[in-house]
């Protein structure tokens, strides 16, 4: 089936707009794609037990939606409609290609209680979505592969879109995804929700991938824009799904709280020209109060459910910022305390850097600069652009202009994001202006 294969490579067929008359349907299909892709794929994978075949069937289902919905109207339950069509397509394939399938290593899943009616067709259960997520984020896959597979299979991004997000060639990303799928099938990474003993650790791996997608979207390391809304939307969707399916688990609850609280400030993080706006300069009246309330409620929920996780503590930091009336009135002591706690749960140089920033706010720029001292030799931060940028900011506030200028130059060497560079260049000009005056 050359057409179907081409579809799978080129991304969803519905992206090709077919005239204004279909606009409403195109939007409905796009919405269904964004909201239900992962669930439809998960339901289909259980049936065919092969990721590529399932993807092909789901692509076909979305293409068919685009063809038939203009005539029949958008169904009340697009997700159910799409699952039915994709699974019917899968059944057709299974009947026609049984010989070819016998040569395929099929996904391993736990034994299902056979349905006396039709033993070949496991019913769809909400767990299917979790199976898909846990398989994509299996620790036996490289971190890059986990992120790529999750974006491709769970969020439904095309290979080209995933490649763009991580600035690699599309062919490189396609090879990475193919290799990961092959490993899943050949090494028999099971299509299964881990048992209770392994769940916490495996869930951590999933949360890590979700956060990585989110931070990549929030602070695009390269490219013309700082915030990539598509990645942010994927991460939020994933976090919501995890929280919905595992409401008792504290880690996804804290993660969702964190994402929602940060996302509440998204509109104010860049100015009209797309340059980043520092927390201190953001227009707090434009922060999304409903989202903040939702995030705080989720945070309470996470903290009630068990001991604080790293995500809950990070969310607590975000909540202190979100609830502060002004930057100056932020409870910096509280934030330093939270970073102290976070350092115990998750001791990383980046957390230490954030703690130094908070300390610089509480006790003044000199204290912050002193706290950075020990990080200067930290190899993990040697090329971390925010370390130079933070040092530069403390030096600027101390009006030590020549040193500040050098630090801004350093930060500029390490940043490839156009929006961020614009900001740093502005600060560098300011510092050089002061040097010229002296």
């Amino acid at each position: 089936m050359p057409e179907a294969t081409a579809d799978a490579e080129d991304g969803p067929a519905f992206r090709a707009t077919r005239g204004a008359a279909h606009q409403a349907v195109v939007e409905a299909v796009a919405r269904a794609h964004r909201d239900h892709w992962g669930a439809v794929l998960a339901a289909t994978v259980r049936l065919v037990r092969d990721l590529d075949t399932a993807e092909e069937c789901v692509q076909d289902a979305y293409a068919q939606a685009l063809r038939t919905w203009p005539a029949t109207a958008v169904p009340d339950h697009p997700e159910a409609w799409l699952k039915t069509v994709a699974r019917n397509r899968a059944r057709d394939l299974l009947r026609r290609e049984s010989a070819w399938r016998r040569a395929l290593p099929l996904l391993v899943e736990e034994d299902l209680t056979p349905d006396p009616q039709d033993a070949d067709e496991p019913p769809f259960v909400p767990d299917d979505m979790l199976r898909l997520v846990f398989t994509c984020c299996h620790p036996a896959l490289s971190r890059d592969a986990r992120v790529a597979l999750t974006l491709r299979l769970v969020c439904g991004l095309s290979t080209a879109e995933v490649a763009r997000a991580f600035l690699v060639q599309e062919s490189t990303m396609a090879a990475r995804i193919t290799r990961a799928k092959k490993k899943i099938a050949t090494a028999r990474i099971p299509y299964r929700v881990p048992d209770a003993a392994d769940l916490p650790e495996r869930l951590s791996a999933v949360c890590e991938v979700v956060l990585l997608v989110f931070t990549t979207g929030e602070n695009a390391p390269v490219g013309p824009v700082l915030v990539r809304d598509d990645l942010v939307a994927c991460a939020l969707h994933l976090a919501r799904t995890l929280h919905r399916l595992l409401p008792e688990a504290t880690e996804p609850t804290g993660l969702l709280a964190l994402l929602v609280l940060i996302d509440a400030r998204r509109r104010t993080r860049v100015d009209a020209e797309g340059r980043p706006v520092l927390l201190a300069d953001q227009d707090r009246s434009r922060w999304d109060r409903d989202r903040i309330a939702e995030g705080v409620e989720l945070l309470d929920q996470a903290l009630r459910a068990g001991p604080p996780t790293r995500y809950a503590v990070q969310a607590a930091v975000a909540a202190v910022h979100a609830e502060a009336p002004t930057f100056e009135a932020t409870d910096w002591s509280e934030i330093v305390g939270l970073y102290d706690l976070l350092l115990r749960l998750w001791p990383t140089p980046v957390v230490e850097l954030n703690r130094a920033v908070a300390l610089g706010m509480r006790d003044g720029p000199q204290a912050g600069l002193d706290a950075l001292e020990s990080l200067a030799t930290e190899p993990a931060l040697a090329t971390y652009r925010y370390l130079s940028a933070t040092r530069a900011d403390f030096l600027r506030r101390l009006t030590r202009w020549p040193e500040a200028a050098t630090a801004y130059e350093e930060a500029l060497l390490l940043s490839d994001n156009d929006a961020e560079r614009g900001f740093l260049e502005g600060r560098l000009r300011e510092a050089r202006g002061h040097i010229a005056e002296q």
Partner: protein
Amino acid sequence: MAKYMVLIYGDEQRWDAISPEEMAEIDAGHRAFAQQAGPAVLASGQLESSATATTLRRGDGDGDTPSVTDGPFLETKEVVGGFYVLDAPDLDAVVKLTGLLAETRHDHSGVEITPLVHHG
């Protein structure tokens, strides 16, 4: 079910200098592994030191006679010290079993799991 090769790698010099306590811990790990795996172990073995290895490669001449040399194929600090061939339902099952080996908890060793090609 599928077959997997479990290869135990490690720093040979440090293996030679291992303390009796650590040796006992490693032995206990293998006993726990064997007990847990039961009939899933299709084959297993511990290799003698790499100094006892002999390697055959394509010979210098144009004949069919391979050249026989003393020593392992790869001259590396880390060598294969032992192996298991397992029959297991999936990778998670093998990872769980392999985690019983003390070699997975010491910095002088590591264990690699590779599926065997299925000739079906």
